[in-house]
């Protein structure tokens, strides 16, 4: 085991692997550690992703595409359906991933680019040199090791510790997290669209999703805003939904997880440390999607690490470029999503129905979410007045 690297990446999810791969391709000496013994498993994800955003990073591969998706359908509390995000030529606009395979393939790409990978290796703290982050303390197979590095990347997901150790408060308040439960349901034909059931009827401050997973299966899940969870829990809401909506479905897997929906946090870098992906709370507060944001952020983080190495400066002064770059892209998007989410969770089911019906004479089938929201705002200015700054 080596005891010194240029960069150590903590966490081998999509954000970590893209960071490690980018660093390795830039000639840096990089180690990626994963505390679990298996990368990608157990899954904590609904596995839906947009093709455009994903294919910037990786060529499509049948090994990790569980199903191709034609678009999205939103179902209002009264059953009104809004078709959106589909392509006029019926091209695939999204995939449902097989994360167990996807995450491994990404980690393997990082390894093939030259990164060292260690599994069953858990970071337990940071090393410091003159106050600056200078590596990690890591436990591998029950033994403690110090591993030095110029930069530590915290890509350690919703449970992120690296940021906290570095003095960045990443703890999520109950209203900053969606707590989720999902079943992989068999004996069920979900069609070719991802479906989103919205309204208090299904979940308070969250939604129910059905993502086709190929071969008569689908990921069916529910998220509930942490602040509304307690007496009612994600698992009970999901059981209720499945019993009433998919009574013949057979549950062949259970997935649980928490999704950060806080929007951008105050800072994601410090001297010798960068946070990426869910650890940096970069998931989308409205959709809950986090995979491609994490990958985009990982790419930027990797590029900034390469520059830092060239300059020989690993302080905030150099690493701040990461912060600046993700804020104008991912940051702007998730800030908008946060505003929309904060309004939508205040609307009751009747108001949501009203919004859905305002689209009765609109063909939204090829609209993406921002466009659809703009149309909704035009038609319901009073109800959506809070969002006026967005349009």
């Amino acid at each position, binding site marked *: 085991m080596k005891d010194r690297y240029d960069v150590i990446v903590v966490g081998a999810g999509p954000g970590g692997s893209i960071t490690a791969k980018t660093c390795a391709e830039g000639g840096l000496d990089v180690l990626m550690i994963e*505390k*679990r*013994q298996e990368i990608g498993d*157990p899954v*904590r994800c609904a596995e839906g992703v947009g093709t455009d955003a994903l294919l910037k990073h990786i060529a499509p591969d049948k090994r990790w595409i569980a199903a191709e998706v034609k678009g999205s359908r939103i179902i209002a509390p009264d059953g009104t359906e809004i078709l959106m995000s589909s392509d006029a030529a019926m091209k695939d606009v999204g995939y449902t991933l097989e994360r167990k395979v996807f995450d491994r393939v990404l980690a393997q790409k990082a390894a093939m680019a030259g990164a060292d990978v260690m599994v069953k290796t*858990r970071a337990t703290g940071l090393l410091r040199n003159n106050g600056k982050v200078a590596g990690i303390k890591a436990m591998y197979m029950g033994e403690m090791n110090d591993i030095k590095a110029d930069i530590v990347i915290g890509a350690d*997901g*919703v*449970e*992120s*510790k690296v940021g*906290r150790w570095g003095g960045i408060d*990443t*703890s*999520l*308040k*109950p209203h*900053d*997290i969606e*707590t*989720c*439960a999902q079943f992989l349901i068999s004996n069920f034909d979900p069609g070719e669209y991802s479906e989103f059931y919205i309204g208090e009827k299904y979940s308070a401050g969250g939604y129910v999703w059905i993502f086709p997973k190929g071969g008569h299966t689908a990921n069916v899940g529910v998220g509930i805003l*942490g602040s509304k*969870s*307690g007496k009612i*829990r*994600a*698992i009970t809401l999901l059981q209720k939904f499945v019993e009433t909506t998919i009574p013949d479905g057979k549950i062949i897997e*259970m*997935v*649980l*997880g*928490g999704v*950060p929906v806080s929007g951008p946090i105050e800072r994601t870098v410090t001297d010798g440390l960068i946070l990426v992906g869910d650890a940096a709370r970069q998931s989308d507060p409205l959709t809950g999607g986090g995979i491609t944001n994490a990958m985009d952020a990982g790419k930027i983080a990797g590029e900034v690490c390469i520059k830092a190495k060239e300059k020989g400066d690993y302080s905030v002064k150099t690493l701040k470029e990461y912060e600046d770059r993700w804020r104008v892209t991912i940051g702007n998007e998730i800030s908008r999503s946060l505003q929309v989410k904060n309004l939508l969770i205040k609307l009751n089911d009747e108001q949501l129905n009203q919004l859905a019906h305002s689209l009765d004479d609109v063909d939204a089938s090829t609209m993406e979410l921002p466009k659809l929201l703009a149309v909704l705002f035009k038609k319901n200015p009073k109800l959506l007045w809070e969002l006026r700054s967005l349009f």
Partner: protein
Amino acid sequence: VNRFKCGYCGACVGVCPKGALELIETWIEVDDSCTSCGICAKICPVGALEVKVK
């Protein structure tokens, strides 16, 4: 922690204001900094956590 119910998703670790929780594979560990605030129990998707006041 009800270890038979816990789905080791780590959501509780993310909301702990004290960083008192850690997830190792399927095992949730609670250290001495826990203040029994109960946020973890509130957000657990399956209700596997219960706070006992010390």
